[in-house]
C-alpha cells in the first residue's frame, strides 16, 4: 500500500511540476527562448501572492485575481523592453540576460522579504483530505492537479483553436514569413510571455500554499520544470504533464525507498530518459 500511496501522491505532485514547466515549454516553443529566470519568477509570484494575502486579508487562491494579471503584464513588458532585444541568431544573449534577471530577482526578493522562509496561510485547505479506499488524498494536491489539467487544456485550446494560437505557431515556424503576413513579432512574443507568466503566477501561488519558500528556491523549481519539459518532449503540452507526473512519481517513490533519495531519484529518471530518448517521450518539435 505504501507504494501505491507513493505513486498516487507523486502523480498529484506532478501536476505542480507540470505547472512549473508549462510556461517554460510555451516560451521555448514560440520563441526558442530558454528562460533561466523562470524558477525565480515562480518564487516572485509566490511572494506577490503572500503580500496580497497579507495586505488584503484574502485567501491565497483569491489573491490570484490580482497576481495573475500583474504577472502577465510584467511578462509582456519584460518581453517588449528587455527580452526581445536579446533574440536573434545567437542563442547565448537570452541565456545570459535571463541568468542576470534571475540574480536580480533573487536579490530584490532578499532585500524586500529577507531570507526567512515564508508561507501562505490557506486555512483548512492545507490539511483537508479525502479518503479513497485506504488512501488519504490531500485536497490541495488534488486541486493543484485539477488546475494543471485545466491550464494545459486551456493552453492547448489557445494554441490549436484560436487566431492567437495560429499566430504563435506561425511565428514559431518561421518568424520572417510570419511578419510578411502582418504579424508583429515583438507583440506576439510579448503575448506569449504574458501567457507564460500568467501560468507561472498560478504555479507560484500553489507552491506558496503547499510549502514554505524563500528567495533562493527558484533554481530548483527551474530544474524541475526543465526536467518535466524534457521528459515529456519539447513543444508537447500534454507531454509536459506526463513529464511532470513521471518526475513527481520518481521523487515520491524515491522518498519511500529512502527519504534522502527523493530528489536524486527524480534526476536519475530524467537522465535515463534523456539518455534513451534525447527528444523526450512525446516530442513535437526538434530543438
Amino acid at each position, binding site marked *: 500500500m505504501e507504494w501505491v500511496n507513493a505513486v498516487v501522491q507523486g502523480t498529484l505532485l506532478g501536476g505542480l511540476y507540470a505547472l512549473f514547466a508549462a510556461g517554460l515549454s510555451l516560451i521555448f516553443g514560440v520563441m526558442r527562448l530558454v528562460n533561466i529566470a523562470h524558477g525565480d519568477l515562480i518564487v516572485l509570484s509566490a511572494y506577490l501572492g503572500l503580500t496580497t494575502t497579507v495586505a488584503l486579508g484574502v485567501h491565497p487562491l483569491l489573491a490570484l485575481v490580482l497576481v495573475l494579471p500583474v504577472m502577465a503584464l510584467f511578462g509582456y513588458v519584460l518581453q517588449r523592453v528587455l527580452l526581445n532585444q536579446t533574440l536573434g541568431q545567437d542563442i547565448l544573449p537570452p541565456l545570459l540576460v535571463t541568468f542576470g534577471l534571475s540574480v536580480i530577482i533573487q536579490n530584490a526578493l532578499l532585500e524586500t522579504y529577507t531570507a526567512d522562509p515564508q508561507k501562505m496561510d490557506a486555512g483548512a485547505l492545507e490539511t483537508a483530505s479525502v479518503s479513497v479506499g485506504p488512501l488519504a488524498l490531500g485536497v490541495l494536491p488534488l486541486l493543484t492537479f485539477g488546475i494543471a489539467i485545466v491550464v494545459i487544456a486551456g493552453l492547448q485550446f489557445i494554441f490549436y483553436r484560436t*487566431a492567437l494560437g*495560429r*499566430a504563435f*505557431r*506561425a511565428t*514559431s*515556424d*518561421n518568424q*520572417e*514569413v*510570419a*511578419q*510578411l*503576413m*502582418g*504579424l*508583429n*513579432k515583438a507583440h506576439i512574443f510579448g503575448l506569449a510571455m504574458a501567457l507564460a507568466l500568467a501560468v507561472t503566477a498560478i504555479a507560484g501561488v500553489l507552491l506558496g500554499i503547499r510549502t514554505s519558500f524563500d528567495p533562493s528556491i527558484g533554481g530548483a523549481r527551474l530544474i524541475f520544470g526543465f526536467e518535466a519539459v524534457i521528459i515529456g518532449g519539447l513543444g508537447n503540452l500534454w507531454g509536459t504533464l506526463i513529464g511532470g507526473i513521471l518526475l513527481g512519481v520518481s521523487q515520491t517513490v524515491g522518498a519511500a525507498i529512502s527519504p534522502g533519495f527523493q530528489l536524486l531519484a527524480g534526476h536519475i529518471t530524467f537522465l535515463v530518459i534523456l539518455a534513451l530518448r534525447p527528444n523526450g517521450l512525446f516530442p513535437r*518539435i526538434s530543438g
Partner: protein
Amino acid sequence: MPDPILALHGLDAFYGDFQALYGVDMTVEEGEILAIIGANGAGKTTLLRSISGLIRNAPEQILYRGEAIGAGRPDVIATAGIAMVPEGRQLFPSLSVEENLMIGGRTGRAGPWNLSSIYKLFPILDERRHQASTSLSGGQQQMVAIGRALMSNPDIILFDEISLGLAPVIIKDIYAALPNIVGAGMTALIVEQDISKALSVSARVYCLQEGRVSLEGRSQQVSREEISRAYFGAS
C-alpha cells in the same frame, strides 16, 4: 500619367557589410505586371525583401503611394497592402492548409479574396483544407503560398521564383491562373528565372545585373540580344 503605386529611388540594400543593390531606380504603375529578371545573385530577391521590409533601407528610397516605407517593419508594410509569395513557398508546417490561408487574412484588409474565393480558384485546396501543409505536392503548396498572400487582399503582390522546383506542367497551370489573380486591378512584381515565362505574362521588364538595373523596357519589345547583354554583361 498617374503617380506610380511603387517607386524606388536610388535603392541601396545591404546584408551587413555586403552591398547587394546599388542605386536601383524603378517605377511601378497601379495594376501592371512587372517582371524582374537576372542571373543568380543579381539582387532580385534582395529587391523583393527590401520592398517587403525584411531588409531595412533608407526610408525615402522606397515610396508606396507616395509614402516612404524603406525603413518600415514588414508587418506594417504587409498591413498597408504589399504581400509576398516567398521563394521556396515557406508554408507554416505546423499549420493546416486552411490555417495557412487564415494567417494570410490576419491583416483584415477588405477585398474580393477570402477562403471561399481562394477555394474557387484552387479547388484542390478545398479538398485538402484540413491536411498539414507539408503533406501537399510542390504545386499544391505553391497554390497555398499564393492563396495565403491573396488572403490579405493586397494592392501589390510580390512573387519570388514561383516556378522554382516545380514540374513544367504545374508551372503552366500556375501561370494560367495568374490573369485571374491579378485581373482585379492588383499590381504584381514577378521575379522569375524562366525569362520567356516572365516576358509572356508581364507588361514591362527590368533586368538586374550585379545589383544594378541593366535593362528596362516593354516586355514585348525587348530583344533577345538586349536581354542576354543585360543578363550576362557582355558588350
